[in-house]
């Protein structure tokens, strides 16, 4: 079993728009190791979300390759790629936009299980209830619809749905950015707990450096489509090497007086 869960090798993605070509990702190599949490930070337009979609095989790189567990995502036939899909799941920034509004909470969690033909309806229901419980949703509310939950609870439901197929890799794109501070803290605790209990590999994307510092083992910094720095979380925050990383860190406004900054 290779130590690398997903590996991008010299990946470039060029979008053709009316305004010309946009090099969203420019020759980036990035690896998420098994059981590791890799944080990916950068400002808007830095290419971090495109990078996430490339590593999920949701978009095809213009050049370069992406391997998931040793298999080249862009060379796999569609059928085999679909077999691989359950092993990589995603959590998005806007939980309401990512849930099916006309499906109940439990319906949303059961749907991927149905699509991938896991068990029968009864066992799917049991599993979905377990998952809702795992992420801290009162199972008595399982039949309610997404809009009847708060933003934080919606994100918990989206996380439960992502976990249903027992993925090896969870890609989270700004999963706490639309949440209030007190709710963000709850979701961060949930992620920490899930990582410790399930041994998941995480690609965790955020513009919030504090959130990434708390969760990630390693951090990669992107700027204008390029990877500018990559190191252990400790080193990156203690002794940033790249000028852009330094600029990013020095822009952080501390909350507490005794903050380490």
């Amino acid at each position, binding site marked *: 079993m290779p130590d690398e869960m997903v590996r991008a090798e010299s990946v470039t993605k060029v979008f053709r728009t009316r305004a010309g070509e946009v090099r969203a990702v420019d020759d980036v190599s990035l690896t998420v190791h098994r059981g590791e949490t890799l944080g990916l930070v950068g*400002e*808007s337009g830095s290419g971090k979300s495109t990078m996430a979609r490339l590593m999920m095989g949701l978009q095809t790189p213009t050049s370069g390759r992406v391997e998931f567990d040793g298999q080249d995502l862009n060379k796999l036939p569609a059928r085999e790629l679909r077999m691989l899909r359950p092993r990589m799941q995603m959590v998005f920034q806007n939980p309401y936009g990512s849930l099916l509004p006309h499906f109940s909470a439990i319906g949303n969690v059961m749907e991927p299980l149905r699509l991938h033909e896991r068990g029968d309806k009864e066992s799917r229901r049991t599993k979905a209830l377990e998952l809702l419980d795992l992420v801290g949703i009162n199972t008595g509310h399982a039949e309610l619809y997404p809009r009847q939950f*708060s*933003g*934080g*609870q919606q994100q918990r439901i989206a996380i439960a749905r992502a976990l249903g197929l027992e993925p090896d890799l969870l890609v989270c794109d700004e999963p706490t950015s639309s949440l*209030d*501070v*007190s*709710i*963000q*803290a*709850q979701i*961060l*605790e949930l992620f920490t707990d899930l990582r410790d209990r399930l041994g998941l590999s995480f690609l965790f994307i955020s*513009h*919030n*450096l*504090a*959130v990434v*510092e*708390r969760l990630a083992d390693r951090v990669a910094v992107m700027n204008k489509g390029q990877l500018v720095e990559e190191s252990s*979380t400790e080193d990156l*925050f203690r002794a940033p090497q790249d000028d852009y990383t330094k*600029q*990013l*860190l020095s*822009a*952080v*406004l*501390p*909350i*507490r*007086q*005794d*903050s*380490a*900054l």
Partner: protein
Amino acid sequence: MSEDALLSVRELRTTFRREGAEPLTAVDGVSFDVRRGQALAIVGESGSGKSVTMRSVMGILPRTARITGGQALFGGRDLLAIGDRELRKVRGREIAMVFQSAMEAMNPTLTLERQLTEHLLWHGICNKAEARKRAVRALGDVGIPDPEKRIRTYPFQLSGGMRQRAMIAMAMVTEPALLIADEPTTAVDVTVQRQILDLLAELKNRGTGVIMITHDLGVARYFCDDAVVMYAGRVVERAPMDRLLDDPRHPYSVGLLGSGVEVGGRDLPLRPIPGSPPDLSHRPEGCPFHPRCAQAELPRCATEQEILTIGPGRDAACWKVAVDA
């Protein structure tokens, strides 16, 4: 109204009409003062009523909302009582607003020139040539390069940071006495954030009072002198900014600080507040925070509501915490 207050809000109550149900109270007896050259932070999570409070004062509430009580004294007038005609003379001239998203707050079909000169011309402050001159100067002041040329562009032709600056220029051009900034840096990148705040600070140094609505405590600390914390439509704590953050008193403020993550705080334990803010249609009796409060003592917390005193210094709406003035 205290002597040197620019704006004094007293006991403001705003409700929202609902079909087939009791009106929803979004702002429930809010009071605060802002002085010239002071930056006041209104801190709170979504649904706490911070934006509705400021929209009530500005008279820009949605149709379903109604102000059912209180005063907003500004320059000897009660903004809540003078009516829309008079309020229009204040809005954009003496009180200006900056919003979270310039893309939504600015008119996409008009050039910057039209939008920056609009207030000057509408209020009859100066003629068109002078208005243009002032608009160009304001764009230059907020650090937009080549303002003579940029004034002819449309909002969508600017980057997010530049657009935010243009909106600030729009608010500054009439030299308002009071600026209300609703999450002015939430939509911009961190490297731009401080530049925007420094721009606003210049305004403050020239004597403009600023009310900043924010959920970002780092931004509040960097920019604001004082803060009020809102929860479920009420002010639960008032304090000088630094003291609120270094030594919060109200259990909700303590929870908010315990939930905040910040760089360098990796090893600090997270102490999230359990549960979620109340649904305003099921507002808890007594202290609205008591169902989530670790220090709550029943029955008192569930029946009685502590009221914040009005005045300088700090105060917390909680009988369990001692507050030195």
